[in-house]
């Protein structure tokens, strides 16, 4: 038994669900909880039009409830297997926030999915896996 959760990065894609499945199996074997983090990419220095400023709070509320809705099937998978699961939805830079959350929750490891694909675009854009492998202070598993 361990109190240190496995941290899963989630974004609603199939790959993210595979990561949740994988983390579930590991959690069962170790006997530890799972913490799912859904990060909405956001920079306080991005540019918005005046109309977007006006609607920002409204949009944010919508985005958060949509994220929660996307999360619920993943939470169900773990709950059905009696794995203790917690989650949070946050705005920010995904790489930095994953490392920060890992520290806050004293996680033992990070599990994330990847979309795959070998095109140049996928390599350039799929940078969360690269960032974490490079910068995370704890073990990272990338689920294909």
């Amino acid at each position, binding site marked *: 038994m361990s109190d240190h959760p496995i941290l899963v990065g989630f974004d609603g894609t199939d790959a993210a669900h595979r990561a949740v499945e994988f983390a579930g199996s590991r959690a069962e074997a170790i006997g530890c909880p799972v913490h799912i983090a859904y990060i909405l990419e956001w920079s306080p220095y991005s540019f918005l039009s005046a109309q977007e400023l006006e609607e920002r709070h409204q949009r944010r509320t919508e*985005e958060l409830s949509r994220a929660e809705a996307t999360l619920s099937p993943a939470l169900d998978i773990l709950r059905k297997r009696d794995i203790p699961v917690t989650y949070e939805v946050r705005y920010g830079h995904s790489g930095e926030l994953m490392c920060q959350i890992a520290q806050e929750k004293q996680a033992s490891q990070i599990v994330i999915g990847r979309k795959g694909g070998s095109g140049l675009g996928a390599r350039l854009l799929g940078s969360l896996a690269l960032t974490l492998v490079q910068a995370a202070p704890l073990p990272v598993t990338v689920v294909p």
Partner: protein
Amino acid sequence: MFSTKWIPASVAGAAILSFAPVAQAQQGGMDQVINETVAPVSNVIAGAIFYSVSFGDVEFPLIVGWLVLAASIFTLYFGFVQFRKFGHAISLVKGDYSDPNDAGEVSHFQALATALSGTVGLGNIAGVAVAISIGGPGATFWMILAGLLGMASKFTECTLGVKFRNEYADGRISGGPMYYLSKGLKEQGKPGLGRVLAVVFSVCCIGGAVGGGNMFQANQAFQQIVNVTGGEQSFFAGNGWLFGLVMAAIVGMVIIGGIKSIAKVTEKIVPFMAVIYVISGLVIIGMNLDHAGDAIYRIFNGAFTGAGVAGGMVGALIQGFKRAAFSNEAGIGSAAIAHSAVRTKEPITEGYVALLEPFIDTVVICTMTAIVITISGELQTDLTGVALTSAAYATAFSWFPIVLALAVVLFAFSTMLSWSYYGLKAWTYLFGEGKGKETVFKAFFCLCVIIGASMNLGPVIDFSDAMIFAMALPNVVGLYFLMPVVKREAAQYWQKIERGEIKRVK
């Protein structure tokens, strides 16, 4: 290509000095019809707003004095807040005091950037050139002074914008002078006066939106296109309505059609253009460091002697004050609309952030334009407006006029988008919200793009200046009544900081 064909811009200079209607007989057909219909109306409005008193042979428009007086009073009343709290303003923009749980909400930086995109534009490029071609390098000194004082006006109006904003049940936020005038004065037991000021402001704001925020921009962008495509031989020459139609269609696609991608692209390019402009200016100043001392001497000397300038020192002062006010819009009230959407529990924080706006716009960007023009020696030519700025930059980089032409069109476009929003807010304040009513305003806004591109520059500038400055009348009256509210806000905010209730998070 940018040299002698800039007749309309020099006409602009003359028009700004004299405020007289300028007849210019080189357009025909459709353009002429539009011009003859609109010019008489705009002349009456401009004449009323720009009522001037004479100083020797120079006319001093009272409205400019009104703005500078207000800025000076706010500066003294708040104890030179623009200098004392400048560092705190920078910390706020950097997010040093932002609650991490508010990530995803509107940050101080975003509110400032959006407000800036509405003010940085042709005023910084064309307006400055007009000011120093008429008022001499000395006008720069007065422009900087007006910019520094204006920081206190912005501080006052943007604090009130957040303090009295409307937060609707669905999460949208609406703020601006029409709300602080009506709600703020109601709190002080003057609901009638507040309502009247708010309505007058809204009417002027709609005028300012279609004038300075639209017709002036369309007009200047069109002049640029004509010059780039061959001047008088250009296919576009005399066909302003056609250019206006194209521009109106694009604006319409964004504001009526809701096609965000066009706005997104513009928003990405505009800050990039601004950065290129500033860096190029700094490089030119760096390359001519040996002349920079002389330029600074001429700016200070000219400010007090007015050497070689029509009207001497007063002439330089009027030009400097006037262009600063037109460029940074401090005391006009427009910025309070954009700033009010920020996520903060303390309205005063947005006031501190907003005081950076005239600093960036006027003290940094306008001054740099002025120094580059003074260094370049192009001031001795009879160029003015964008043509002067363009020629000054071209002395160092021959390719710059093309970049500048693109920048002018893009700045014009982004300013139009900002002002279409400000105008719409004033419109909905007067007539209520509703898709039908809003579309009426947006369609009218697009129509004004066509009118603006078709008219002569003289009447357009007169009308634009008039309506934008008219917004300052009700706004500043309200600010005088409400400035004690801002002082109380500041006092309780600094008490919270002292007590440790508000802490730096970074």
